[in-house]
């Protein structure tokens, strides 16, 4: 599989949030008004003006000491994006795959599409709409930087090497190699997305301990990918509502 990919090694992420800020800076996105909700995480979620957010989750670990997981959440740039399929009836050119990188890019033509349908199609709960204009936004893979030989802004700013970016096959190799390295310290470690996404996360623990939508099992047995994605997309409407309820409770 050609094109590019991110490899995000959460075992190296210190949640400095350089990536979150660099994303806002490069894309010149305004800050949202936030308050402290009893967490270091802020903003509490992605938004039309927030393409990337580092999610914080704390749990009691097996040795009765806390663990604190950090999850830099962003669009996974699916190889076969359900959002693209969801937009094809209303806005055929609304979403395209960048030919050199494989980045999933939303265009202005997406205005014609049913935003709710697109949002609900995403297994990872990524796209966000602008309440006024109804437009959708999400991570662009900084394609304009990548086309000019630069790293995406978030990767460029990461001090620890938690964020990597490059040719997809090289990222696959890097992710697998790193997984082998960390298995001793984190026996439950896993890499997500390596088969069908362009963002791979190395997680030290079960994905659900990082974020509700950290990973979705997109390919159950005896079902092809497209069918699987559709099924997930359908059930996501419920998940999304559930998430909103959880959110309100937390807030």
């Amino acid at each position, binding site marked *: 599989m050609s094109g590019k990919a991110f490899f995000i090694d959460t075992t*190296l992420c*210190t*949640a*400095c*949030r*350089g990536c*979150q*800020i660099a994303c*806002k*800076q490069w894309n010149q996105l*305004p*800050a*949202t*008004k*936030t*308050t*402290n*909700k*009893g*967490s*270091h995480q*802020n*903003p509490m979620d992605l938004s039309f003006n927030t393409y990337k957010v580092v999610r914080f989750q*704390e*749990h*009691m670990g097996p040795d009765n*000491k*806390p*663990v*604190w*997981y*950090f999850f830099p959440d962003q669009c996974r740039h699916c190889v076969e994006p359900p959002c693209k399929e969801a937009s094809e009836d209303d806005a055929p050119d609304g979403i395209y795959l960048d030919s050199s990188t494989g980045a999933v890019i939303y265009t202005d033509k997406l205005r014609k599409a049913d935003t709710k349908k697109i949002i609900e199609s995403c297994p990872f709960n990524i796209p966000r709409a602008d309440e006024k204009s109804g437009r959708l936004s999400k991570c662009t893979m900084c394609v304009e930087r990548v086309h000019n030989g630069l790293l995406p802004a978030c990767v460029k700013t990461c*001090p*620890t*090497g938690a964020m990597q970016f490059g040719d997809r096959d090289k990222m696959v190799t890097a992710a697998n190699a790193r997984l082998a*390295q960390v298995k001793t*310290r984190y026996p439950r470690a896993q890499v997500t997305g390596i088969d069908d996404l362009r963002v791979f996360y190395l997680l030290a623990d079960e994905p659900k301990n990082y974020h509700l939508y950290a990973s979705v099992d997109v390919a159950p047995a005896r079902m092809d990918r497209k069918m699987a994605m559709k099924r997930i997309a359908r059930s996501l409407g419920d998940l999304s509502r559930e998430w909103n309820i959880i959110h309100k409770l937390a*807030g």
Partner: protein
Amino acid sequence: MTNHWIDLRNSDCILIMGSNAAENHPISFKWITDAMKRGAKVISVDPRFTRTSSKADFYAALRSGTDIAFLGGMIKYIIENEKFFKDYLVDYTDASFLVSEGFECKDGLFSGYDKESKKYNKATWAFVKDEKGNPKKDPTLQDPRCVFQLLKTHYSRYNLDTVSATTGTPKEDLLKVYEMYSATGEKGKAGTIMYAMGWTQHTVGVQNIRAMSIIQLLLGNMGVAGGGVNALRGESNVQGSTDQGILFHILPGYLSTPSPAWPTLADYLKRRPKSADPLSANWWQNEPKYMVSLLKSFFGDAATPENSFGYDWLPKVDTGKPYTWLDIFDEMHKGNFTGFISWGQNPAASGANSKKTRAALAKLDWLVNVNIFHGETSSFWKGPDVDPGKVKTEVFFLPCAVSVEKEGSITNSGRWMQWRYKAVEPRGEAWPDGEIIVELMNRLKELYKQDKKAIFPEPILNVKWDYATEGKFDAHKLAKEINGYFLKDVTIQDKTYKKGELVPGFALLQADGSTSSGNWLYCNSYTDKGNMAARRTREKEGIGLHPQWAWCWPVNRRIIYNRASVDKFGNPWNKERAVIRWDAAAGEGKGAWVGDVPDGPWPPMLKADGAPNPATKYPFIMKPEGFASMFGGGLADGPFPEHYEPIECPVEKNLFSAQLTNPTAPTYATSDDIYKSCDPRYPFVGTTYRVCEHWQTGLMTRWQPWLLEAQPQLFVEMSHELAKLRGINNGDRVLVESARGKLEAVAIVTIRFRPFTVQGSVIHEVGIPWHYGWVYPKDGGDSANLLTPSTGDPNTRIPESKAFMVNVKKI
């Protein structure tokens, strides 16, 4: 830092204690990550489980203010389990030195304590000397009066039970940390410590660091790659500001501020101890060259041998009188100042006991604030509970350029002086700081010149003041002045240096007025070869010293005390991570050191055949005897670190002695100085800290929308147990209150704070960041320093902002 940031990657075990590097020194984790990939272990010891702890191999919690108990237990463990590096200890430290018979530590007090003055007479804190005047030694380390045995006895009380009952750290966690870290005592292994304000901001701040220095010496970790004692500085240039003498007690280059103890230059130049041992370099014996060169730099041609190079024009401090931050604001509060220039700082939010600081500012006639934004200091007169009509202080605000709008150097924690160019012109009326200073002095000189009745005008009129080019501050001129010039033709060892040449290194500075240097430590930084700090060549291979990248004091030495990284033959303890090594074939067959710039050119202590080399010098060249000090005779509060509780503490008893708190710690007596220990109104330990997203008082970062978005408001972190006790839910607004002030904050209820079991009782601790202030944002909260007390370390008087007592309740 004795080492530097990149060198962290060479470590086998990194102890992060008294700092939260992942959040407050985020780039350091680049090098820590490198070390971890190589197999290094990282230990995080902190009252709260932090972003640093989340990455560590092992985390242990301790109650704020109990680090010496924790580390004292480690010293005992290392000695009793023989984890120390014996060759290093005997050859390079004072472990074998015999201590004066009169010295003792009895029930928490060292010999010589005077209750009245709260000070020690240190006469007995000395070594026994032989007939030649050198310290008597017992290389077997068996003599009960040798430093090693005294150390062993002193820490014999620091057993796991007592330490655990004091720190609140479970015994198994103490043991695990001790085992992991003391494994670096093995020859060839390196352990390092990363500390910051979590260790310094205590009434035992200096002794916290001394305790760790003792551990590093016991394990042979000083001078080696991946070792050292590493202070993570809180600002990009705080190392530089200290080097250049910004503190009251030092002139540039760590030369003492003159006082009546040395009424004349001759007295001043005689004050350093002499060594009778020809093998001791005793480097401070060169101080006269540095002091005279500094006076020549200050006063130029006006400084002559006849007028003691202008020594009498230097301000003198009263002997023994502190002029620190705490003391300045105490005097200001008493009305003893008329004016105050607050430059690049925000004391109304940054100093301990903000209520006192803010009240003190109102006692001034005038206040000048030089800053990039208005903050709590320049706006204090319209602050909460202040009636502007009743404040007499006239406030002037001078906007200054930000870092990218000016040229110059900064010196980072690793002692690297790095040149920065100007990216853009300052906006509006903002001036670079250098320009403001140049103009200020120009006006002062003019005023003194015009005023026929001016009192003692010589210091101002005689200051050499030529740092401008076409009327504007010139950073290059100043940098060259700091390096120093030959002021006449000088011949040194057959080589003649011409008048006007830049001095190539401090070994060539002279005490006769023929050289100048604004800071001897920086001599070699800007030479006729160019601006060393502007160099940008990376190392191609090696251990990450990057000798051609920027410049490092002293004389570009990247790891100080590096002559302790080799054995007595000059072979590195660890060949793979050699800092220096003796190459017998180099130097035209005479032998020479290769690698980093060594701590002096002298050959190793032994010749190849094992015979002592009379041309050698001992590795710790800044000490009079040439040996690293485990016995610290010069400090205000004792030669060995001893556990004392913070001035405000949750216990009535110190399990180690009858002495509850540091007997030499300063306290103050204004109406705003209140201290409450074991008071049921303030039952919880409070501490302060920083977050990744804000800087200092937040004066620069609170106006950055993206940073404010990420950390918008003051919060207080607490355990679920404490929250339950007080009926507080996560995200509730709560009141945090000390004997001095109160704050509203958002509660973060977390498993990352756990109650401590201390002396059999449950002790809760809460933590608050100090980056907020009432000026902006309006819903952000105010400074955590409204809670902290005016007390601090007796040596440095850094405030005790890391451990004090508070109450928390739901609003």
